[in-house]
C-alpha cells in the first residue's frame, strides 16, 4: 500500500481545509431573544425523568473534575464537567422541575450571551467522553446532558463555525469533507486499479452493508482498502452503496437531533433495501453510538445487526475464522471513548492484536478509564489547538509510560488527533489503525482480492 499517502501526509493536506472551515459556515442571524427561546425549547424537549433525576441529585462535590482531561491539564475549575450543565440546570428548575413556580420568582431565564459563553465549555472543552460519568457518586451521566447543552447551543445558531460548516454540508450533501458518490467511485476505481482488488459497489442484494467515511474516502483510502481486503478474505457477502456509504453522522456529533435522525434513517433505508443482515461501521468511533445506540432516533427495532469494525474483527478472531500472521510487536491500544466506555467494546480489538502475536501494554488509565484522545465529539475540527495540545501531551505521556513501540486505535478521529500530537511533540512512535494492521497481517494468499 506504499503508493498511497501515509496517514500523516494526508493529515497535513487536510489541515489546510480544516483551517478554512469557519469561513464556510452558513450565517445564523437571529435576534438574541430568538436564540435563547430556541435553546430553551430544545432543553425542555430533552428534559425527561432521567435527566430530571440527575439534575436533582448533584451535591457539588467536584469529583467529576478529577476525571476530566481538560480539567486535569489546566486545573481551571470552569472545566469541571458538572459546571457545563449550569444553563441546563437553571432551565430545568425554571421550566420542568417540581418547584418551577418557585424558581421562576428567583431566577432569570438563560440568555443568548450566556449560550455564546457556554460554547467553549460544551464544545471546545468537552468531548462527551463520559469519563466524568464514571466517577460521580450520584451516578449522574454528565456527558449525556452535555449532549443536550450542545444541541441547545446549536439550535441557537451558536455552535462553533467549524462544526456548523461540516454540519451544513452533511445536511445538504449527506456526506462530509466533499466525499461525494462520484468521489467514492473514483477512490474505489483507484484502489481496484492500484491494489488489484475488487471492491463491490452498488450490489442490489448483500448480507452486509459496509459504511465507510468521508475521512477514509478523502484522506485515508488505506482504511477502505484494508476493510475490503479483510472482508474479501473472510468471504463476506458485502457491498458498499453509493446511495448510502457515509458512516459519519454530524447530527450526532453536533447534537442536532433532526440531522442525526435524517442521516441514520437514510442508512437504515439503504440496509433494508438490499436486505442486509449486518451493517458494518468503519473506523470512526462516534458512528457506533450514533447508529447502534441511537435511542429515540428510530421508532422500531432494526431488522439488522449494527456492528463496529473492531467488534467484528475481534469476533471473527475469537470464532477462529480470522487467522493473522504473527510478528509479535509491543503495542498499546487506545480505546475510542464512543466504542469503549460508551459502547462496551474492549476485548475484541485486543483479541485481534493478540492474534497478531502482539504484546498489549496498557496505558496507566485504560479500557473503562481510558482518557479521550483530546479531540473527540468533533473537537478535532475546532481551531482551539492550545487547549487540545495540553491533552495531547498528557496522552503521549501515557503512551510513553507503556513502553510500547506502537499505538493502535480503531477510530479515524482519534488517529487524526494522535497524528497531530505526534507532529507537535515530535514523537517517533507510529499510530496505527486496527483494521489496517489486520489487513497487513492476512495470510499470504490471494483471497483478499475478490469478494466471497
Amino acid at each position, binding site marked *: 500500500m506504499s503508493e498511497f499517502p501515509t496517514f500523516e501526509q494526508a493529515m497535513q493536506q487536510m489541515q489546510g481545509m480544516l483551517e478554512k472551515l469557519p469561513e464556510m459556515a452558513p450565517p445564523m442571524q437571529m435576534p438574541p431573544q430568538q436564540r435563547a427561546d430556541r435553546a430553551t425549547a430544545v432543553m425542555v424537549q430533552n*428534559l*425527561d*425523568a*432521567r435527566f*430530571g*433525576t*440527575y439534575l*436533582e*441529585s*448533584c*451535591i*457539588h*462535590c*467536584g*469529583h467529576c*473534575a*478529577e*476525571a476530566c482531561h481538560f*480539567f486535569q491539564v489546566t*486545573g481551571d*475549575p*470552569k472545566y*469541571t464537567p*458538572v*459546571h457545563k450543565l449550569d444553563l441546563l440546570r437553571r432551565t430545568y428548575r425554571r421550566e*420542568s*422541575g*417540581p*418547584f418551577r413556580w418557585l424558581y421562576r420568582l428567583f431566577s432569570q431565564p438563560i440568555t443568548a450571551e450566556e449560550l455564546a459563553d457556554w460554547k467553549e465549555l460544551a464544545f471546545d472543552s468537552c468531548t462527551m467522553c463520559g469519563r466524568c*460519568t*464514571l*466517577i*460521580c*457518586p*450520584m*451516578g*449522574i*451521566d454528565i456527558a*449525556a446532558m452535555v449532549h443536550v447543552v450542545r444541541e441547545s447551543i446549536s439550535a441557537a445558531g451558536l455552535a462553533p463555525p467549524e462544526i456548523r460548516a461540516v454540519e451544513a454540508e452533511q445536511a445538504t450533501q449527506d456526506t462530509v469533507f466533499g466525499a461525494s458518490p462520484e468521489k467514492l467511485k473514483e477512490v474505489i476505481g483507484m484502489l481496484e486499479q492500484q491494489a488489484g482488488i475488487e471492491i463491490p459497489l452498488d450490489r442490489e442484494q448483500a448480507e452486509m452493508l459496509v459504511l465507510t467515511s468521508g475521512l477514509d474516502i478523502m484522506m485515508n483510502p488505506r482504511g477502505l482498502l484494508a476493510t475490503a481486503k479483510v472482508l474479501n478474505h473472510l468471504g463476506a457477502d458485502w457491498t458498499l452503496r453509493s446511495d448510502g456509504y457515509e458512516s459519519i453522522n454530524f447530527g450526532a456529533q453536533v447534537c442536532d437531533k433532526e440531522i442525526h435522525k435524517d442521516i441514520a434513517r437514510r442508512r437504515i433505508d439503504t440496509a433494508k433495501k438490499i436486505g442486509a443482515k449486518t451493517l458494518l461501521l468503519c473506523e470512526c468511533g462516534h458512528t457506533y453510538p450514533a447508529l*447502534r*445506540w*441511537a*435511542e*429515540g432516533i*428510530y*421508532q*422500531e*427495532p*432494526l431488522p439488522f*445487526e449494527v456492528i463496529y469494525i473492531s467488534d467484528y474483527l475481534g469476533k471473527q478472531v475469537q470464532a477462529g475464522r480470522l487467522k493473522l500472521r504473527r510478528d509479535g510487536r509491543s503495542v498499546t491500544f487506545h480505546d475510542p471513548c464512543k466504542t469503549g*466506555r*460508551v*459502547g*462496551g467494546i474492549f476485548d475484541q480489538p485486543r483479541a485481534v492484536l493478540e492474534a497478531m502475536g502482539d504484546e498489549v501494554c496498557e496505558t*496507566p*488509565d485504560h479500557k*473503562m*478509564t481510558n482518557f479521550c484522545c483530546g479531540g473527540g465529539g468533533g473537537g478535532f475540527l475546532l481551531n482551539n489547538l492550545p487547549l487540545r495540545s495540553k491533552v495531547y501531551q498528557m496522552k503521549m505521556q501515557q503512551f510513553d509510560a507503556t513502553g510500547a513501540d506502537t499505538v493502535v486505535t480503531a477510530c479515524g478521529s482519534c488517529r487524526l488527533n494522535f497524528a497531530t500530537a505526534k507532529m507537535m511533540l515530535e514523537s517517533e512512535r507510529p499510530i496505527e489503525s486496527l483494521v489496517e494492521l489486520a489487513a497487513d497481517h492476512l495470510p499470504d494468499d490471494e483471497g483478499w482480492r475478490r469478494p466471497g
Partner: protein
Amino acid sequence: MSLLEFARGPAFQAAVAILVFGVFWRLLGVLTLRWGQRQTEPRASAAAGGVRTVFSRFWPRRGLSRNVRTGRFLGYLSHIGLALVVFGGVYHIETIHGVLGVAWPALPGSLISVAAVIALGAFLGLLGRRLMHPTVRFLSTWEDYFSWAVAVLPLVTGLLAGAGLGLDYATLLAIHILSAELLLIWLPFGKLFHGISFVPSRAFTGANYGRRGVKI
C-alpha cells in the same frame, strides 16, 4: 404551651407532614416527566446494570480514586456517623416508633456521643474542603452552605443538650428538636434530597450503560 411542647407537638407534626408531602411532590414531579424511548437491541440486561450501579457507586472506581479520597472519606464518615446517631440513639428510636410503630435496640449513649463528634468533625472537614478546594468552592452556591448548616445544627444542638451545656436542658432539648425538624422540612427542597435521589440517579445510568454491556 412551652417551647418544648411546641417542638414535640405541632412543630413535629408539621415537619413530618412537610417532609412526606415534599418528598412525594419532588419525586413525582421528576419521575412523571417523559421517559426516554429504548428501541435498540440490548446487549445485556438493563435491570441488572441498574441494580449493580446503585451499589457499585458506593466506592470510587479503581483508577479514578486518586484525587477524591479525602472527599469520599469525609463523606463516608459524616454519613455513617449521622446514621448511627439518628437510628441508634434511644430517644430517636422512640420518636421513630411513635410515628412508624417500629423500633429496634438502641446503641449505648457513649457510642452515640462518639459517633456524633466524629460526624461533626467530618462535616467540619467537608466545609473546610468546600471553602478551600478551588473547584468545590467554584461550584458551591448558598444552598450548599445552607444545607450543610441544616445538617450540622441537630448534631451540635444534640451534643449540647446531651452535655447540658449553655441553657437549661428543656430549652436545649427544644432547640435540638426544632433543629432536627428544620432538617426534615428542608430535606425535600434542597440538596439533602440526594439521600433519596441517589438511588434512581445511579439506577438510570447503570441501566442505560448496562444494556450496552458496559459495567459502570
